[in-house]
């Protein structure tokens, strides 16, 4: 399976990773010798304050600045603002929440959003269709820097029909536009009155209609939420949630293992495995797509398909998984996970070292020996190191590593100032994530691919309403993706909630967005 050079590289890198992990961060926590538990057996129980640990503190509580995914502050957004919709974790089917329905009568160009009757924000102002229009329009303005820019950008027209009804028209057919709502801050509607008061006032009083309200926020410390007893839906079980922000993943796990916290979100397979060994509750979000090695097609060297194919064939993804995840990661060999209704068995990459070397030799013979700079972000250096090490055995290929700050994500991915780097395209519902990432000209198309056949497959998949038609379209997409070597999916993205065995009701939607109303603590 591995050649001699690769075995040596693997051993050396693993040893280095172990040594470095002992010197930096907290190192591995000693697993406590409790039996693994799946959470409380009986419940739900009302009462108690849950302590949640998240990766990074939001810069403010504006819903447009929060990100609706596992890594960021989705819990805070869902708690303060509630959700228009959630989604079934297995089927991705839209589940009404504060909104009652989202329907289309013309196959996905014009939609009607209906809210529940009588909704109000906690400041007493009405949560109506006008409030939704306010926020979705706000997201459309690039100057506001909303994380919902791309999704709201599909909307070309909005019309408030009555207090509970908003009609909107999209620039192109997108039957499952609802999935885009659940993936973005479009799902969170704050009081326009409070929002217009400005950032400072809003942070002191972030008015929403969610199951919790803000009690207190000490920056760098704890963000405390209290149950909103006037919540329009079933009241939350918890009395409150204390959110703390801890960057170090090992420390988050240590806190859970010692009972200092109740729940956290994990984005690392190795840590997930340790959580299981420690007897903690591990809840994974079923997801397709994954994390990938993006190759910038708009500039050398990866504007040459041979270069991309050489890397795609040359990288041993099992060895890669061994290095970066201690072998615990779930490989993303196919676009969809095994149990996804749209699964197809088109392998996105194929390890073929002989073919890789042939391509590299071909490039060298054309006067273009492959020299690659891998841009990796702080904290993810091991990915670049594994890439460099595993490709070091090939002739006519050199790899350099450049480590940059996460502050440069916009420059690197948004402005495509990289050769190869780490990206992620994970989804339950492909219609949202895949066009966003791979449609020619899309703002988040960070690899710069612009292929008519790939676009056609994406559009067909998005527009189709029957499962068989969608499956056929995404099979074409997978085939073309592999032919063009657009990127190298190296693992499913870990969207994992880890909790003590006292925590029940753990539910997530879309990209691992944790739902606070269902959470409860066993006595």
């Amino acid at each position: 399976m591995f050649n001699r050079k690769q075995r040596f590289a693997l051993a050396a890198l693993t040893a280095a990773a172990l040594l470095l992990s002992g010197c930096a961060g907290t190192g591995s926590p000693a697993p406590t010798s409790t039996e693994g538990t799946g959470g409380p057996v009986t419940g739900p129980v009302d009462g108690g304050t849950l302590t949640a640990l998240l990766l990074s503190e939001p810069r403010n509580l504006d819903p447009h600045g929060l990100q609706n995914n596992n890594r960021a502050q989705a819990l805070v957004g869902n708690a303060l603002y509630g959700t228009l919709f959630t989604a079934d974790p297995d089927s991705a089917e839209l589940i009404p929440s504060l909104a009652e329905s989202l329907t289309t009568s013309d196959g996905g160009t014009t939609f009607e959003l209906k809210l529940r009757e009588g909704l109000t924000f906690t400041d007493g102002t009405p949560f109506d269709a006008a409030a939704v229009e306010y926020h979705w329009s706000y997201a459309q303005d690039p100057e506001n820097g909303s994380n919902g820019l791309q999704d709201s950008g599909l909307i070309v027209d909005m019309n408030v029909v009555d207090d509970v009804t908003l009609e909107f028209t999209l620039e192109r057919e997108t039957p499952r536009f609802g999935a885009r709502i659940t993936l973005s801050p479009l799902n969170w509607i704050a009081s326009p009155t409070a929002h217009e008061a400005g950032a400072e006032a809003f942070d002191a009083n972030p008015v929403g209609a969610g199951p919790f309200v803000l009690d207190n926020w000490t920056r760098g410390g704890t963000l405390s939420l209290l149950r909103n007893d006037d919540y329009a839906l079933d009241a939350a079980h918890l009395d409150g949630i204390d959110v703390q922000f801890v960057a170090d993943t090992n420390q988050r796990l240590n806190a859970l293992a010692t009972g200092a916290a109740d729940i956290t979100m994990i984005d690392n397979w190795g840590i997930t495995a340790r959580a299981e060994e420690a007897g903690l509750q591990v809840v994974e979000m079923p997801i397709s797509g994954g994390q990938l090695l993006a190759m910038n097609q708009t500039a050398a060297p990866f504007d040459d398909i041979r270069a991309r194919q050489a890397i795609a064939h040359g990288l041993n993804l099992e060895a890669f998984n061994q290095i970066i995840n201690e072998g615990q990661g779930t490989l993303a060999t196919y676009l969809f996970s095994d149990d996804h209704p749209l699964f197809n068995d088109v392998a996105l990459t194929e390890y073929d070292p002989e073919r890789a070397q042939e391509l590299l030799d071909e490039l060298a013979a054309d006067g273009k020996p492959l020299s690659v700079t891998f841009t990796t972000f702080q904290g993810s250096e091991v990915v670049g190191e594994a890439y460099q090490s595993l490709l070091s055995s090939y002739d006519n290929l050199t790899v350099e590593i450049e480590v940059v700050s996460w502050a440069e994500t916009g420059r690197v991915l948004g402005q495509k100032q990289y050769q190869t780097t780490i990206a992620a395209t994970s989804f339950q519902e492909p219609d949202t994530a895949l066009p966003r990432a791979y449609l020619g000209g899309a703002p988040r198309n960070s690899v710069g691919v612009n292929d008519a056949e790939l676009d056609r497959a994406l559009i067909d998949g998005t527009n189709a309403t029957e499962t068989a038609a969608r499956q056929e379209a995404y099979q074409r997409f997978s085939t073309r993706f592999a032919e063009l070597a657009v990127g190298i999916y190296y693992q499913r993205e870990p969207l994992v909630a880890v909790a003590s065995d006292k925590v029940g009701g753990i539910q997530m939607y879309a990209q691992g967005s944790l739902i606070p109303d269902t959470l409860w603590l066993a006595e």
Partner: protein
Amino acid sequence: MRMIALRVGRGLLVILLVTFVARVMLSLASGSIAEGLLGSEATPENVAALEARLGLDRPIWEQYLTWLVGAVQGDLGTSMFTQQPVAESIIARIPVSFQLAAMGILIAVVVATIFAILSASFPDSPLDRALNALSSVLLSAPGFVAGPIFIFVFAIVLGWLPVLGWVPLSENPIENLKFAILPALAIAVQEIAALHRLLRTDLITTLGDDFILAARARGMGRAYVMFRHAFRPSSFSLITVLAINIGNLLGGAVIVEVLFSLPGVGGLLVTSITTRDIPMVLGVVTFIAIIYVIMNLVVDLLYGVLDPRVRRPVAR
């Protein structure tokens, strides 16, 4: 008074230089807060427009001058990232950093003094060699090594202390102490080693002086001679190093604060550099520079207390 005025004047120059260099270095780092604020979907045009609104398209010297004019009047500006006043953000975090620094230094000074006195009292003895070996071990254990070890032993295995977090001293002193002890120990570890070696060397040198021999010859006890006669003249280097280290720690023990998720100045500096939040970086750098200047002034004044010869003008 003249000496103080001179020191203050020099200190102001230091602060000016440090803040200007910090501003220049930030401009050299790639990435922009505008990119961070607008996200990865921002076009170069959007980024440029926001940078213009934030004044980031002006020459560096002009941006710095604008900031300086405000700073001199007590206005350190507003964070581009959080929109909070910079001064308020820093002031809110000072108590945490100060408490950690104070606890860390106190532990270090007490332990290092005990070690140094024992070492100097029995130089080259097995005890001295054992303490030197321990110092070598502690010296090679910076905060990011000592911290995880303490967490593993005291929080995970023994379960005596919490892994992370903070309770303000004003809220609950007992709980505060529980959260503060591990980070303070992590800070103290390397300080103990450095201070022990310094003080040991100075004590051994002083104990070899004639006046010590004279004191012993007059029948004074070893302990009396050590504390009454030897310790004071041996403490100049200790005080100098302490002042520098206190200044360093009061500015925030960055790694320890990040490791234990403490809301201190060090953590604020890390976040603001990561996000390229220029006003906040300059504000924190200014605060740290002021601390250093004050500590150096205190050291100079302390010299005069410890050694009256320093206070007398030099005879011409």
